[in-house]
């Protein structure tokens, strides 16, 4: 089962221009879509916001010193040194999608935490598609300089009014020595949207990168395989994914960590639920190329219908003797015995199934500051309430 190639030409690159807005609250007609992607129009407890609507960056503002937020084009113009970071981790020639973004980029964000800046309040960024048949080709560059800390909530979302769209996104993350980035991404697509993110992360000595990915709404097709390169000594990478795939969703998602720094560590944890006619390919890949590295991969899948498919493909590649890589993968249905056990406490069958599904999906989201962890959990619960 591989995801078929998108017919890029069937989506348009023109007609997606919008004027800048003075405040996110101007977009009140899309409030539900923004909230569903974790974006707070009032910017409560945020260090800053970025919002791109179709092809235009309509809002970009940092609320605290040490943090820069701007459109990628503007950043590339302002900082010539950014050339070194642009198309550095992801190759332009990787596939038709990277080539497309290289040839016809339509903005994206540049996020920059200055050296030593500990920004504990999250910044929110949103890539929003509001027009039909739009091709959104974004390129994001995120840099956390030495000893800085950056927490990002990013939501990709579409207007309920559109029938189809294409989102291509290049993201290049740089975690410098002793720095930390947490990246909590909510995908809130719709049944006729095609999505091809291409992301890579480079983590230097003692750096930490944590990705939390939540995707609980239908999507026509989604294919991504972000890679973290633990190049620094004792660097750390974690990918956690929670995927609930309804309808005809066709999802091919994995995470890869390449350990080239001595003593680097990483975990990949995923939970995937397939229902209706959904297809999920859950991949994971740990590549050990340095000594004293350690990685663990855990994929769990839950099948809720006979018409859905989950394939789980964990891979381990070891190229040094002094390392430790492991994986566990399991796919199954909800055991009848578990449902009955909960029903024996007086819950209905639906309530019992709901509790088990919630339990299955509830990963303890790691590495976030307390307020953000609470908020993420609330956002997750809200999404769960909506889909179930």
């Amino acid at each position: 089962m591989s995801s078929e190639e998108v017919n890029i030409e069937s989506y348009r690159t023109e007609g997606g221009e919008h004027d800048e807005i003075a405040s996110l609250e101007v977009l009140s007609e899309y409030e539900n879509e923004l909230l569903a992607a974790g974006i707070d129009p009032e910017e409560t407890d945020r260090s800053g916001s970025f919002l791109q609507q179709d092809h235009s960056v309509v809002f970009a503002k940092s609320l605290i010193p040490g943090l820069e937020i701007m459109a990628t084009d503007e950043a590339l113009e302002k900082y010539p040194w950014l050339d070194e970071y642009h198309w550095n981790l992801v190759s332009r020639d990787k596939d038709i999608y990277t080539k497309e973004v290289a040839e016809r980029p339509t903005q994206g964000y540049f996020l920059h935490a200055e050296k030593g800046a500990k920004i504990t309040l999250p910044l929110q960024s949103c890539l929003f598609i509001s027009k039909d048949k739009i091709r959104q080709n974004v390129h994001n560059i995120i840099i956390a300089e030495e000893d800085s800390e950056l927490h990002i909530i990013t939501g990709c979302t579409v207007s309920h009014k559109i029938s189809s769209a294409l989102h291509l996104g290049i993201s290049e993350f740089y975690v410098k020595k002793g720095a930390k980035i947490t990246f909590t991404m909510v995908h809130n697509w719709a049944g006729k949207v095609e999505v091809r993110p291409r992301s890579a992360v480079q983590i230097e000595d003692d750096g930490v990168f944590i990705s939390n990915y939540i995707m609980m709404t239908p999507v026509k097709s989604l294919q991504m395989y972000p890679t973290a390169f633990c190049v620094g000594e004792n660097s750390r990478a974690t990918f956690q994914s929670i995927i609930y795939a309804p309808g005809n969703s066709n999802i091919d998602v994995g995470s890869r960590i390449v350990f080239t720094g001595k003593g680097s560590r990483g975990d990949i944890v995923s939970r995937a639920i397939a229902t209706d006619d959904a297809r999920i390919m859950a991949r994971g890949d740990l590549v050990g190329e340095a000594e004293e590295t350690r990685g663990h991969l855990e994929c769990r899948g839950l099948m809720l219908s006979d018409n859905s498919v989950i394939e789980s493909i964990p891979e381990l590649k070891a190229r040094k003797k002094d390392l430790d890589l492991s994986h566990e993968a399991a796919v199954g249905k909800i055991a009848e015995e578990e449902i009955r056990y909960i029903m024996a406490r007086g819950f209905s069958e639906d309530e019992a199934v709901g509790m088990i599904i919630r339990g299955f999906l509830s990963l303890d989201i790691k590495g976030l500051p307390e307020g953000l962890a609470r908020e993420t959990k609330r956002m997750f619960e809200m999404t769960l309430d909506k889909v179930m």
Partner: protein
Amino acid sequence: MLEIQNLSAEVSGKRILNDLNIHIGDGEVHVLFGANGSGKTTLFLTILGFPGYDVVEGKIYFKGVDVTELDTEKRVKLGMGVSFQHPPEIRGVKLGDVVEHLLKRRGGGDALALAEQLNLSEEFLSRDLNLGFSGGEVKRSEILQLLAQNPDFFMFDEPDSGVDVENVELLGKITNEMLEREKRPSERKKSGLIISHIGYILNYIKADRAHVMLNGRIACSGITEEIYDHILTEGFEGCVARCGGRDTA
């Protein structure tokens, strides 16, 4: 409280319960003995109305209501509660959340305070249901859920198997309280049915009557101490032979 008349039941088309009769009055606690495979657990799950436990003949009355055709959820809401011998592990579902849900249904309560009665910590409440629980922890978690549920009729499936002496004593004490055994017989409202293979729990809970199950029916009933003594000296079948399949009480 519970009246079972001529009950026959099948599991996967196989007859497990045969023309079984039992009557448990308000405030009474009965104990159910029987060898493995005699149908004790099947009786529990049939009383509870579990899917797959099909009544082919007879009636089950609970609090005067014919519940034979009622689903589990409704029977539990009428006041039945059960503790399982081997509950399944459920990843991600926290014991504390289940207890909170049960308390909320009764209008609220303090989950931690209940847990502490059973020497269970707050950390324990945050664990996934039955995942990696020790034998004693499983029993205490089951009793904790029953405490939160506070039913009128309790069914305990082997509350004393695989539990150390200290825990049996604790569980016995709490169970006694739940069943209002401290009160005068006329003031007791709660009833219970306890499956015990080994009978340790009877050192802590005084049961009013005992029954021996054999081949899916109640083969013998009587005063708990007498029945227990017979089983200890002569085994289940010897006990049944001695009482000639009659009620000795």
